[in-house]
């Protein structure tokens, strides 16, 4: 186990900057998830930690040692790839023991480690099969086993569940969480699936266009996002944003009125507001934070487009008079959504205020 520190890490391909100065501390034994949309640089950052991409500038340390120019095999890392990257001409046993054999480890020790890993991952009956004779989930377990046998300081997972079907993904997610509990290793995990990020991580790093937008515990990001990007990315379905205008400012509060509905006003807490009266702002409301009519601080009438009934809850897809499309979760009522108009309550305590640049107003 080891900690990982990134100091002002940059990656450029010619004039194109991919990673634009990342500072990050990952503590020993921590499960950190890099999350962000496609092309945000999360996989590139992981590959830089692995040594598969050069670091243009900045410093990377693993366990206190600078690793910028160290060979991938000597960084004390093991990596699990999205496509599993199992050697197709080797059996499961050979795949798992390959790196150890190459490192010159004694046969008995290789056998012991491979057997231990196989027991943890319940791979026993599959050991003499080749990858093509395994299912997706089995292949992923072998890929994890191949990482475990190396007893690395840091595990790197690059979207390991993306190629699995929904049911298997949930199963493997639990397996990985259990594995982290058992091994207590430092894990860096890349995904674009925010549900994976929320359920697995001790700490989430949200990336956008090569820049870290916010770092924090999953619920901290959910409860207290820094900007509209993080607010929209964390949480499923994503947060709704309603256009509004600052109506008045009082000590500790900002009152806003919704665009096209000046009578719908919300008084939001803001200790040091960076906005002034008349500014365009947006209000963020999570689908699950809409209240029943009359039970919030203000009522909002929406036009219902379509409704989805999932059994335990329902989602109403609607739009407001300013045109924004919103999603409302209605766990308590199924019949209320079978109409053209719906009145929902907005609560100031569970709404977020963002300025016109998308930065949170606190």
């Amino acid at each position, binding site marked *: 186990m080891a900690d990982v520190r990134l100091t002002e890490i940059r990656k450029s391909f010619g004039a194109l900057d991919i990673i634009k100065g990342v500072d990050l501390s990952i503590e020993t034994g921590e499960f950190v998830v890099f999350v962000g949309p496609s092309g945000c640089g999360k996989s590139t950052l992981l590959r830089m930690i692995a040594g598969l991409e050069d670091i243009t500038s900045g410093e990377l340390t693993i366990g206190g040692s600078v690793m910028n120019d160290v*060979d*991938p*095999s000597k960084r004390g890392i093991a990596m699990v*790839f999205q*496509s599993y*990257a199992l*050697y*197709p001409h080797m059996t499961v046993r050979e795949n798992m023991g390959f*790196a150890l054999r190459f*490192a010159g480890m004694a046969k008995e020790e290789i056998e012991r480690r491979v057997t231990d890993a196989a027991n943890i991952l319940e791979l026993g009956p599959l050991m003499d099969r080749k990858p093509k004779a395994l299912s997706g989930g089995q292949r992923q377990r072998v890929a994890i086993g191949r990482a475990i046998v190396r007893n690395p300081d840091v595990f790197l997972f690059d979207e390991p569940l993306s190629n699995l079907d929904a049911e298997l993904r949930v199963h493997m997610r639990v397996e990985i969480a259990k594995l982290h509990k058992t091994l207590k290793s430092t894990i860096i995990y890349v995904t674009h699936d925010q549900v994976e990020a929320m359920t697995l991580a001790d700490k989430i790093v949200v990336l956008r266009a090569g820049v870290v937008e916010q770092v924090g515990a999953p619920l901290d990001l959910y409860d207290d996002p820094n900007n509209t990007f993080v607010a929209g990315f964390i949480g499923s379905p994503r947060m709704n944003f309603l256009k509004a205008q600052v109506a008045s400012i009082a000590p500790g509060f900002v009152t806003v009125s919704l665009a096209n509905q000046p009578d719908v006003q919300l008084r939001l807490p803001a200790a040091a507001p960076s906005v002034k009266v008349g500014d365009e702002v947006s209000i963020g409301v999570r689908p699950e934070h809409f209240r029943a009519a009359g039970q919030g601080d203000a009522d909002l009438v929406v036009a219902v487009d379509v409704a989805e009934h999932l059994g335990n809850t329902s989602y109403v897809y609607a739009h407001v008079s300013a045109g924004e499309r919103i999603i409302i979760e209605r766990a308590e009522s199924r019949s209320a959504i079978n109409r053209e108009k719906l009145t929902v309550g907005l609560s100031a305590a569970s709404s977020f205020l963002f300025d016109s640049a998308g930065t949170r107003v606190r």
Partner: protein
Amino acid sequence: MTPTPAPSARTWRFLPAASTYIALSIAAFVSLFPFVWMLISATNTSIDIIKGKTSFGDAFSTNVTNFFTLVDVPLVFWNSAKVAILTTLLTIAVSSLAGYGFEMFRSKMRDHIYSLVLLTLMVPFAALMIPLFMMMGRAGLINTHVAILLPTIASAFIIFYFRQSTKAFPTELRDAAKVDGLKEWQIFLYIYVPVMRSTFAAAFVIVFMTSWNNYLWPLIVLQSNETKTITLVVSSLASAYYPDFGVVMIGTILATLPTLLVFFIMQRQFVAGMLGSVK
């Protein structure tokens, strides 16, 4: 007049299949006829062959005896095998490394150099013969098998073939191997070669056949009987003042056997390689 009945739907349904079978039958006949004619001719005397006899005769053993009397068969086959096997192994070694390198390593010059390599495919061999002959002459390699090997081992076509096949090689395997501690040459040897074995097999068949059947360049650089390959010897039998075509056909059969053998042994791998090694 009775109107001709319109073809039924059943007829229309079978028409494409029938056309395919007819076309394939014609192609099969065109491909197989020379082999059948070669086998028939090998059993007939030269005069019967010239007369156009199309049935099996009784001169097979005479033709075989004459061929073995006229030709030092072990030496000629040894020469051909040596040249073909060495050319094949060296061509595959050089071209697979080049194809792997062109695909795996990125640089600004990569595609320019690759275009130059492909450009050499457009230069006909006739234009290269004289410069090559002069080069070999200056290097003192005329009448040696090295003179046949050298110009062929960096084959633009096989480099192209390997590069195209390497596009299907998962880069994550290379990354995984790097994390496992393999150097680039070890990745090539222990991961790339086994994973791409069908591509290698197909390249082996193509290069071996081309090399075994190579005629023009060996004809120019090999001048003594001790160095000549089977294709040159069969050709010289055919161009004698009174060629014995029965003997020539025996030579042709023997010259064809190794390529047929290689093809049939590696047929499955060859087809898989042409379709792509990685699935």
